[in-house]
């Protein structure tokens, strides 16, 4: 006998209450949901403006004033020296590029694999990509000795007939990061168009003007949706290799150099996994803040989403541990004298606590805590775990860059690295990231409304024998 499947209301009241815990099974009318998102975007408190003002001052002082001072004085005001020619600037660059991986990973990869839990927070993650890349770009320009000539890295026709040196991993890096910034900004913009059109239809004044321009005249006809879907599909697939290549190329900056501890063939995938580790953890942190501070967000972002992100963090943490162990074992087994010296310096040098903190935060914390569904479902816990993972990943980059640079093949030049103004500048980039995110949260719909609505339309409860099961129909 063929099983007949037809949408019916759940049999019992308890079952109904349980299914309502899932956003996809707890639909609200389209108009109401639109109004909720518009309200979250319009609501600000004096706390919001107070924090934004303070962050603005921090950005002004710690980023622009401090940077200007460093440009006029030279890099001597920072802590870089011989042999630690690269310091926290590059640590921050790699860190922010790592953060920026979250957006693409959460949005594009989960979209491609049709993971339904992604729907309410793809935009929140995509914004992190763009804003994170801005900080990465700033950090790498800070690090340059003559930043006012940085345009020489770009391939442009000039009177000298000189091109950038395409043998240099830094030239690859420059192109890769720019490609990623452009592609991820476009990828942020495409799914935003229907929401901008929604916002255009529901706002007045200057907002209406801005949204009208940005929405590109989107009216929601079948033809427009068909084009938009095709474009988003192409971008979702195309941006994934870009994402993987960017951090691989960042890893090649180190792996291609002839230095103990750096010339490791596994650095490419190791860095990609590390980027995802910090990036997904940062998405969890941002979602906790968004959920806690913005209006109506408790409807969109629920325990099930933290649960799903927590599982992802646990898997990525295991992946990171695998690559770390692999890198470590092969370097140690290689038996090179300088590599052994370097590994000993990591583990038992004066900064061994950073190495230890890295392992505790990146491996021990997620492994011991994220097994537990209760912990995964609690935003407070997820914020703390996300923060610790990001601390651990920052430590990892600190170990790879300034601590490893201390040891080279000329022991006479060994010298410890003491950070200077780069700490202030690092705080500046962090404040700039948060400030941009805060402003964006009130300027663009942080929840992709159409995507949530689409998911809710696709989900239904069906009776299969005595069981009630969730059915997802293919809309796309």
């Amino acid at each position: 006998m063929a099983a007949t499947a037809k949408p019916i209301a759940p049999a019992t009241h308890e079952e109904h209450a349980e299914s309502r815990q899932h956003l996809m099974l707890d639909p609200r009318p389209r108009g109401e949901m639109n109004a909720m998102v518009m309200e979250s975007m319009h609501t600000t408190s004096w706390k919001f403006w107070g924090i934004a003002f303070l962050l603005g001052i921090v950005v002004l002082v710690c980023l622009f004033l401090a940077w200007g001072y460093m440009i006029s004085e030279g890099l001597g005001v920072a802590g870089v020296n011989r042999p630690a020619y690269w310091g926290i600037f590059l640590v921050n660059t790699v860190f922010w590029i790592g953060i920026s991986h979250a957006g693409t990973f959460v949005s594009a990869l989960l979209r491609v694999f049709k993971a339904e839990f992604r729907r309410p927070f793809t935009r929140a993650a995509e914004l992190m990509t763009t804003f994170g890349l801005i900080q990465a770009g700033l950090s790498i320009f800070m690090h340059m000795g003559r930043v006012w000539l940085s345009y020489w890295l770009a391939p442009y026709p000039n009177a000298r007939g000189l091109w950038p040196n395409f043998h240099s991993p830094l030239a690859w890096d420059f192109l890769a990061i720019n490609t990623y910034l452009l592609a991820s900004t476009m990828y942020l913009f495409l799914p935003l168009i229907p929401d901008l059109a929604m916002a255009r239809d529901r706002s007045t004044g200057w907002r209406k003007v801005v949204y009208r321009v940005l929405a590109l005249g989107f009216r929601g006809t079948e033809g427009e949706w068909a084009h938009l879907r095709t474009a988003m599909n192409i971008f979702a697939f195309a941006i994934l290799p870009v994402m993987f290549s960017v951090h691989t190329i960042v890893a090649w900056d180190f792996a291609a150099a002839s230095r103990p501890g750096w010339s490791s063939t596994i650095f490419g995938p190791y860095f990609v996994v590390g980027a995802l580790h910090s990036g997904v953890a940062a998405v969890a942190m941002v979602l906790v803040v968004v959920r806690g501070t913005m209006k109506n967000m408790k409807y969109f972002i629920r325990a099930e989403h933290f649960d799903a992100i927590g599982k992802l963090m646990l898997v990525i943490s295991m992946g990171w541990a695998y690559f770390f162990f692999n890198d470590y074992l092969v370097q140690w087994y290689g038996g090179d004298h300088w590599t052994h010296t370097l590994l000993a310096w990591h583990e038992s040098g004066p900064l061994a606590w950073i190495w230890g903190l890295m392992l505790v935060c990146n491996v021990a914390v997620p492994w011991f805590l994220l097994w537990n569904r209760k912990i995964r479902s609690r935003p407070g816990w997820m914020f703390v775990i996300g923060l610790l993972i990001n601390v651990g990943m920052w430590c990892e980059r600190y170990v790879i860059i300034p601590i490893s640079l201390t040891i080279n093949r000329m022991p006479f030049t060994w010298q410890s690295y003491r950070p200077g103004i780069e700490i202030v500048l690092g705080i500046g980039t962090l404040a700039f990231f948060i400030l941009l995110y805060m402003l964006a949260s009130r300027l663009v719909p942080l929840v992709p409304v159409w995507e949530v609505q689409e998911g809710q339309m696709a989900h239904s409860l069906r009776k299969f024998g005595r069981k009630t099961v969730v059915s997802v129909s293919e809309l796309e």
Partner: protein
Amino acid sequence: MSNPLEEVGHKWGMVIDQDLCTGCQACVTACAMENNIAFVGEQDAAYGRSLQWIRVERFWEGEFPEVKSTPFQPVLCQQCGQAPCEPVCPVYASVHSENQQINIQVYNRCVGTRYCANNCPYQARVFNWRDYREPGPLDNALNPDVTVRRRGIMEKCTFCVQRIVQGEDTARAEGRQMADGEVVPACAQACPTEAIVFGRLDDPDSLVSRLKRDGRAVQLLEELGTQPSVTYLKGGSSYGRNG
């Protein structure tokens, strides 16, 4: 005999006899005077920011007072044939000179990524962390043949390329071959024990070529395959030190 006027391209090289070196630092001083190397001050120097193009490395074994010192090791840019600093520069500021077969740092082109310095296994490159001004009347002693570098760029030993070019020009103008020992960099000129010998490696009869064939000859970090132009002599007799 080939026409000396058309002859371009020599391979210059250096031999440093560590058994002769007394560690007197005369080479360091002479290099600073010849090449307009700025004084960075005590604080920056102690923090690994001194701009010396040549440094005299000194090591010892054991605990005081039972220390046994190893031969002094003057280290300068090894002017590698396969230089790790060259491919990594994104703007071609670190390039190979065809005429002298040395590594050239183009100061005007350098944007200060410091990748070359990270990749130099000899740590021979130094960076201008600040604008170091010459104190007092010392700015009158600057060598007009050498560029004064500003903040934010990398610099390193050039084998006193200004002297090489001058020697080549003089010989060409006089229509003759360069004699061995005609071009002497500042460090070799100042060395009181003549531990530093400079000359053409493409001339098999030059002093530097003959010394390079000595049984004591070694090269720094030979295993990396950088093909250095500097050869060290050590392990023979020791003059007055360490018994």
